[in-house]
């Protein structure tokens, strides 16, 4: 059912996402960081100037002066880098407990370990603070058993690591047939399956491409 209407579903989802994305109103910077009465006291104000009017206007704590700027680096000694700069205060300052505890633990203090604990603690070896995307994972692959050469350099991660789209990078056996058995079975000229050529691909093929092959 899904496969039959895949393009319609894809188009509908893309359109729905686009409409939803365009219709979501992101608050202005001041609003994002504002002191909202509904949230309660989010940040300790002990060292702030005594005059509330320096930041707040009107009868509600919600409203801040137009030129309000909260310099997190200056006020707290912790600069907000990348995507953290536009995050709402409550994403970190919330009811889980002292934010200093979680900040001291690095990324894992706030972000769940979507790699199921298997890739260690050094998130910054692959990720930065702007986006979770890893634009240059191919460079990191140099430190594995299987250097990416030839056509493997352009292969999407999920073609070898079946769960890569779910951040599951569990080991893939580096033998050719681990990923290419389907190719061998589908090849009819010469008929690999009929000739019993279902493993030891390196007898004829280079890992840079199926052609040329030396039949031996």
């Amino acid at each position: 059912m899904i496969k039959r209407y895949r393009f319609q579903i894809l188009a509908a989802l893309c359109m729905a996402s686009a409409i939803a994305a365009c219709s979501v109103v992101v608050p202005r910077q001041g609003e994002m960081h504002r002191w909202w009465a509904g949230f309660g006291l989010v940040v300790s104000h002990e060292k702030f100037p005594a005059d509330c009017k320096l930041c707040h206007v009107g009868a509600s704590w919600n409203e801040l002066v137009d030129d309000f700027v909260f310099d997190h680096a200056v006020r707290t000694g912790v600069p907000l880098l990348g995507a953290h700069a536009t995050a709402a205060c409550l994403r970190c300052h919330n009811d889980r407990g002292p934010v200093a505890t979680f900040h001291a633990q690095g990324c894992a203090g706030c972000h769940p370990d979507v790699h199921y604990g298997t890739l260690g603690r050094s998130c910054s070896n692959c990720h930065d603070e702007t986006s979770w995307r890893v634009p240059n994972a191919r460079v990191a692959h140099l430190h594995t058993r299987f250097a990416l050469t030839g056509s493997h350099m352009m292969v999407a991660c999920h073609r070898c690591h079946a769960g890569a789209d779910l951040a599951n990078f569990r080991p893939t056996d580096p033998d050719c047939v681990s990923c290419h058995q389907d190719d061998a079975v589908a090849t009819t000229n010469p008929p690999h399956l009929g000739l019993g050529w279902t493993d030891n691909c390196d007898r004829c093929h280079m890992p840079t491409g199926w052609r040329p092959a030396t039949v031996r």
Partner: protein
Amino acid sequence: MPYGLRLLAASCLWAAVAVAQNPDFEQLPLRISSLRPNGACVVDRGRRDLVQIGDRVVLEPRNGQAVQGSVVEVEERQSRVEVVDRAAVLPIGTKGYLLRPKGRRAPPARSPAEPRAKLPPAPVQKQEEWQSGMPLLGTTRPVRPDERPVLTYGRFYTGGNLVRTLDSWSHSFLRTGAEVEVDNPGGHGGTLQFHGEFDWNTEFSGQTGTDLRLLDFSYAKGGTRFQPVRWQVGRFLQHDMPEFGLLDGVEVGFRGENGHRVGASLGYLPLLDEDMESFADLQVAAWYLWNGDIAERVSFGLGYQKTWHRLEVDRDLVVAKARYLPLEGWDLSAAIWVDFYSGRDGLKDDSYGITRANVFAARRWQGQGGIELAYDHEEYPELLRNELAQTILPLTLADAHQDRVSLHAFSLQDEGTRWFLRLTGWVDEEREGGAAEFGVEVPGLLHEGGRTGFVLFDMQGLTNSVIGGRIEHGGTFGVGRIDALYEIGFVHHEGFPNDRDDLLQHRLGFVVTSDFGGGWDAMFSLDGTLWDKELSYGVGIYLQKHF
């Protein structure tokens, strides 16, 4: 600044200094607390400090050039000051002083004979738990999660790659999805989470495959300082023990005041591959996490997971993990996965096997550099569950393993130059190998704010070896951040008995990351690899709206 204005400012400043030296005035130190348009600023002295309109103020910014001003508006705790030189740069926090006549005194105190108004008794503040280090001010009653307004966070994203390699587009793909988190839906203080996506992948032989994936759809409540019991139901990544994987079921945990946690979960394990099929593997798990103190600088965890594959006994897994995170010193962590086997597991003779282990140690010296050491071990567990969507021969399943040690050291120089070295060594059931990567990143080589890197590397893989170099450059331009890379590698394939086992491989990469504002950001990439007269290339785009 015009010459006449300079003269006026100098005159005023001279006059102020003269007044300051006048024994009839005293200096009242102050500081700029905020800035106002047209050369005005607000200082943290007001009526309670006996400040009056017309008082002269001297501000002393760090550039050493004193700026003269006068008070034009007075409030109880602050005053507005207009400076003569409106072009002067006066950041918030600039110190200065106000010249206050010594004869100025506060209004007379209330007469003792005058009856004092009876003040209401001070409210008794209820002592909340977690007083020490709590993020909210302790003398007020924090708002409870169920008293907060409904708030929604999340993102929509679409990304894809169009890849041409070996006369085929068979590595292209497109992913589009949404990740949404709603706080306090329905006013119960919980959190509703959703993450789903639609994937379109080209497959072998030119066919295409599509998948609708639900990565998270759950409701969680508790786990706060007001409610130590936390429960979550739906599809989600297990909260306290992510090592146990995604779950279709329920998890319950309790967090004590000392940070210790105990919990259990029950449900089905979806397969962690593109299809995410579920309801075949039932699991029950329990764990205990010990924390040395509330700051969780020392912690140990122990968990046990039992699974049944289609109601047939399958896996007995124990996961132990530890973390030591001192304020100063080495950051240490370790985790180990141990599978216990029984007579039903024919390929694994041992009574138990260390399926996976990792040890990580890191030390950073602020502004100087750091070092990271890691050890990893992995081997295949024997499962009834089809966890690995690839062909694993029985012999491989029984014997295959990999142990890897790695070192990453880097040094930061005063001018921002960064030297780094990465070393990796590995051994598996067949052979051993490793990789070395040494490089330097230099700031401002091509333009201000940019970083240029030069890297040399050598690796010995399972079937090939590569020696080469890489030039990288990244920096911020008008459209956003641009990163470019060129890599050349001399590749030797081992065990291939023909004359094409040596080749030269070039790679060119180009990535633009841009933040359009309003929550929109995007990434565009171009990638090409040329080897032995073959060219592969790809174009990628990733568009995201977060809110």
